[in-house]
């Protein structure tokens, strides 16, 4: 009687081809007068649990129980022996390849050494001290100490001086423009009489030059002041920290800080330029995500201008200082605030919302990070690098990304320094009122049409943004709900509702996905709608939200009979 295990024979075809080998386990036993042979083809390396295999063999081939333990020992011995032989064979093959010269010894050892150097602290190259990180530590410590008030006031003072400069600049430019207008009027009046077209042109170009010169002058002055402020500030912070380290005079310094801060607040109160508070419409929801284990998140629907989250308000206006403190406290923490800004395909700050944003970003010195221009320059460099890497990779595996890759690469070929919809660059700021990180998400005119789907690059970009939020602890993110910053004619009520539904649903999906990445940390997502939509529309949208997200039930406290 010879039996062959049918199951394993069947599995043979499924097994992977590489390095797997089949061996036959032969077991002989006597059952009464019969000599029986059990043959089992086994796949090596053995993935099965030996006890399971043994149990199944016993059952399937109806093997008498008196040889149960014999079969078990001989089976496990067989597998042990063969596995050991396999190990030896594999190992010696590798050694042989080395002696035969199939593998280069130097390459091999350098690969090993690289992987040790790059991944283990013991062998890693010592780290060069980074000024930015040291400053980060110092600042984080100070802002969480009594000195925080002083820091904020100092920052605010700097802000005031910059905004004074800016208003001075605006004034001067305005004056110049007025003067030029009157001059131009005069010239136009004389046109045809004493002056020719050429003269008018000359005056116009003269005016333009004058404007340019004035603007340049102001720009360089602002830049200079900013530089000085930044340096002063950083030095002061370091010094303050050093002073506080000495235990003896920390109390004195605390006193000093208090006195100083009072003066500063008084000085601050006398500021001139005020932002008027505009009534914002907003509604908050607490939601639950997940089928069984629920995670709680906060959602907020806000009708506001996107730059409202960036602009500073003067001290004195309600809550502005608290908001400032909040932003400063969180700067180096692990709960950051982000904002999605929709931009076109060029990395600069010359036009549209990019220009407006740059203006706001310049209103206050960034004491921690490079200014926006520098950051954008860096992005441009990284972008070029990324394009090079990507194209070399695509050459390596041309068959890999055939679909859709073609038209994309065409756009890239046109101008490699432009970005395509769905890509985004990130800038970091310490000088904006409620935001630390700005995601500049590239969109095209497609988002104005009514027919975008969940597969649209803009939506995929949102997903990637949420993913970065996940990996870099950005717990509050503001997203333009309609994927536009300004309303226009073609954006009708049905268009708005359709778009809002799409974005709500996609964001819900992404948030659920995020919960699996990071274990469901509670987040806040703010949906931003443009200021120009009607109040009625806003409430329509806010009614839609609880239908898509599950709003957590209110706790009802009722006395039971």
């Amino acid at each position, binding site marked *: 009687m010879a039996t062959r295990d049918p199951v394993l024979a069947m599995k043979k075809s499924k097994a992977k081809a590489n390095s797997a080998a089949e061996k036959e386990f032969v077991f002989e036993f006597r059952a009464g007068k019969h000599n029986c042979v059990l043959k089992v083809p086994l796949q090596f390396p053995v993935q099965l649990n030996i006890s399971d295999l043994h149990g199944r063999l016993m059952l399937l081939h109806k093997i008498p129980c008196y040889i149960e333990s014999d079969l078990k020992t001989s089976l496990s011995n067989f597998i042990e022996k063969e596995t050991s032989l396999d190990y030896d064979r594999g*190992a010696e093959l590798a*050694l042989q390849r080395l002696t035969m010269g199939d593998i280069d010894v130097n390459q091999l050892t350098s*690969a090993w050494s690289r992987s040790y150097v790059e991944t283990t602290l013991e062998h*890693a190259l010592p780290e060069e001290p980074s000024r930015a*990180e040291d400053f980060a530590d110092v600042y984080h410590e100070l802002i969480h100490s009594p000195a925080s008030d002083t820091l904020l006031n100092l920052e605010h003072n700097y802000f005031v001086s910059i905004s004074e400069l800016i208003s001075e600049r605006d004034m001067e430019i305005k004056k110049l423009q007025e003067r030029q207008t009157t001059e131009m009027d005069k010239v136009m009046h004389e046109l045809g009489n004493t002056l020719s077209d050429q003269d008018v042109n000359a005056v116009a170009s003269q005016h333009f030059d004058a404007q340019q010169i004035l603007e340049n002058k102001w720009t360089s002055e602002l830049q200079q002041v900013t530089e000085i402020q930044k340096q002063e500030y950083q030095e002061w912070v370091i010094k303050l920290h050093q002073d506080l380290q000495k235990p003896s005079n920390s109390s004195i310094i605390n006193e000093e800080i208090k006195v100083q801060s009072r003066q500063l607040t008084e000085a601050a109160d006398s500021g001139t330029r005020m932002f008027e508070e505009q009534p914002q419409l907003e509604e908050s929801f607490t939601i639950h995500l*997940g089928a*069984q284990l629920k995670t709680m998140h906060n959602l907020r629907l806000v009708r506001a201008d996107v730059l409202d989250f960036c602009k500073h308000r003067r001290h004195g206006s309600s809550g502005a200082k608290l908001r400032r403190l909040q932003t400063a406290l969180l700067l180096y923490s692990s709960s950051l605030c982000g904002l999605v800004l929709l931009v076109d395909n060029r990395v600069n700050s010359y036009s549209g919302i990019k220009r407006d944003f740059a203006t706001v970003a310049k209103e206050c010195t960034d004491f921690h990070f490079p200014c926006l221009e520098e950051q954008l320059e860096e992005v441009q460099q*990284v972008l070029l690098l990324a394009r090079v890497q990507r194209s070399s990779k695509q050459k390596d595996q041309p068959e890999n990304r055939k679909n859709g890759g073609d038209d994309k690469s065409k756009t890239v070929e046109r101008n490699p320094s432009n970005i395509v919809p769905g890509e985004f660059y990130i800038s970091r700021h310490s000088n904006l009122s409620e935001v630390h990180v700005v995601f500049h998400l590239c969109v095209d005119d497609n988002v104005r049409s009514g027919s975008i789907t969940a597969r649209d690059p803009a939506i995929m970009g949102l997903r990637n943004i949420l993913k*970065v939020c996940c990996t870099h602890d950005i717990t509050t993110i503001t997203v333009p709900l309609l994927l536009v910053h300004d309303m226009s004619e073609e954006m009708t009520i049905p268009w708005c509702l359709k778009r809002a539904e799409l974005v709500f649903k996609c964001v819900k999906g992404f948030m659920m996905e995020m919960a699996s990445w990071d274990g469901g940390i509670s987040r806040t997502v703010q949906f931003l709608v443009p200021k120009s939509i009607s109040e009625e529309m806003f409430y329509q949208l806010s009614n839609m939200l609880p239908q898509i997200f599950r709003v957590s039930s209110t706790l*009802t406290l009722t006395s039971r009979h």
Partner: protein
Amino acid sequence: MKPLKDAQLGAFTFFASALPHDVCGSNGLPLTPNSIKILGRFQILKTISHPRLCQYVDISRGKHERLIVVSEHYASSLSGFKQGHIISPEKLLQIAYGVLEGLEFMNKNGLVHRALSAHNVLMDYKGNVKLAKFGLYHMTDHGADVDFPIGYPSYLSPEVIAQGSFHPSDPSHDEAPLPSGPKTDVWSLGVLLFELCAGRRLWQKFDISEKLKFILTLGCMDDIVTVLAEEHGCLETIKDLPNNVLELLRKCLTFLPSKRPTPAELLGDPLFNGISFQRTPFQQPVSLFSSSLRCAHLELPDDISDLCKDDDEDYLSERGIDEVYHLWCLAGGDLEKELTNKGIIQSKPPICTLPNFVLEDGESFGQGRDRSFLLDDTTVTLSLCQLRNRLKDVAGEAYYPLLEDEQSSLPQSNSSNELSATVTLPLIIRERDTEYQLIRIILFDRLLKSYPYKKNLVWKEARVDIPPLVRGLTWAALLGIEGDIQAKYESIDKDTPIPTDRQIEVDIPRCHQYDELLSSPQGHIKFRRVLKAWVVSHPDLVYWQALAYACMSAFIPKYLYNFFLKDNSHVIQEYLTVFSQVIAFHDPELSNHLNEIGFIPDLYAIPWFLTMFTHVFPLHKIFHLWDTLLLGNSSFPFCIGVAILQQLRDRLLANGFNECILLFSDLPEIDIERCVRESINLFRWTPKSATYRQHAQPTKVPGDNGFGKTATYFSSDYQGMPKTDLSREPLALCDLKAEVSPRISAEDLIDLCELSLAGPSKRNKAGKPKIVAVDIRSVEDFGRGHISGSINIPFNTVFSPDGELVQCPATGALQNYRGRVIVVISHVMKSATMFAAHLVKVSFQRVCVLDGGINKLKPTGLLTVPSPQI
């Protein structure tokens, strides 16, 4: 798990490698994060116990794929013996023998160390060898799930080096090297022993690639030991070594793996003759469920008092390592904080590590490599001071409670007054209370050790609560599992393909995937095996798989008998009808409303009962629910269902059909503790026979349970009772569906009204629901004989033809009995059910009907005739 003794708890951390962007698995689902894979593979390591290995205790997942592993730890290691100090040959052989014992045990369990080095060979205070980090190679899937290479450059064996390092960021090597075999550890041991002999580290001045090159060139040498000695200038020392040590070194440092012995072969080598006879071979402790005698190897010393000699007042260290760790966590231990304090976890502020630019497919650029992600595998000792401080007031007796006397309540010591106060606190707080958990764990540990002898006591204590740490075993005990389940489990064919495979394959990724364990591939594999085993061996039943299997197979027949039959519709229908009757019984108002809007249980409750609520709740809630569920009988799920409905009562009452469907499609949070409490309460009010089901599990053969359960009123199953002619009779499904209120059996009525002929009932009345029997026959019939204590309310006197309640003295009387269980008795079942339906309509609670009517009672002779004219 083995006791802590003089060991410490140690923790080390590493990162799993990040997954590539946006790659999906072959089944279209997102890939499982590597950290979860590692976590799943780690679980088997917890079960590997050997005196030469450091016991693994726990693994936890942090942010950004960080993993922290907790294990037994000792402060001194072989790296402490370094430089100049030379170990005596005897000591050396002993160390080698210890290491080999550990390695051999690992190999038997299919593990390879691979990271053997001087600082991973720890020494306990007696100088015994303890191997640390032995599971790293296994849990990382031979290094595939982490970025760093496993092992240390100086100790790598030539074949490992030759196979190359696999570096994920390097596209030129896309195939992983073959896994290493047991013999690589022997080479590492050789290097280690050589270092101990020479009293210096090898290749200390070399950089990594030089080291590795040197090792590879050793293949051309005849005598590796001599070459090494010459290279390091310690030829004299090596030459002076005794022959057996030299022999050992030569054997370990054999270049070709085929000529190198395995750990098992080396252990049997004659050169260890002097040592091996002193050592007693290690015996695997016998587990709770096995066929062999647990006390077979128990040897009592001649003088019993010897046992009490080494009494050093440190009772905590006599507890298992896992218990100590569990308590350490409860006492405020925080792994990440400990590691951060020691500087092992360093993190940069996230704003400094943001990328500059992200492509459409999610690949990011401009982000420098973060140094804090590099591997630092230093093990940090977890200080037990805080825990000991917390427990310093716990008396020594508390560690050894006496269980002999079943009558006495909780083993009490003086300090346990506050403990009894703790019992009244909410469960969540109790589960976080260190002292309370200590006492409970010790108690359960002892009870379970004496299982099944102390089964009754387990039941009793489980009713108070079940400590999370011992939940698995306790459930097994509650379900009455016995025998060698491991062997039984093994003997079931789990590999042969069967038709249900596909369904299982699809279902598993949908089961509680937020739980790390259940979402890991190992978890999937084990879960699949358990399910298949169930499917294959249906007509009849770990660690965690064997046990889970045994539990499942005991559980399913109890609660879900026949639910998984092919044509299960009528079984479910019956179940649901009974459920709706139970709703009507307990909450008529709600039931009226639900019936009105047509929101029948079929629409929402099927998944509840099919999965015993696991489908609707997260695991931590299920645990609590099941703790209670296992204690009740098979009708308990009904009560839970009603309790859930009652929590949603207000909203259900306020809403129409559509809103209700929406509400249940995405069930809101349920306060599980309240739910459990209420369902117990409801259960008390429900007469046993009210939930009678035709298709329930038939009565067990008496004597099936050797140690019979405590047949208390609440735990025994109605179906488990012997059938008499007073029991309920099966009813056609359509009839059942037509009835609003549940029927109860005459037996129950007799029991509840204490009408027994045989003198006073043996059970006291305290735990029973208050009952009133309502006889709706005509006055004349009532006069001819009725149950004592029943009131007579003829049908037509109370209800007008259109179902309104008529104002009359009888209804007044009925109103007075609101809140009690009302049993409607009649001649004809039809009128009784109608009467009950009317009562429910006007929101009477707890209405039920006597099955079979008054005729059932006639033969019992319990009917009394009122003495005329009084």
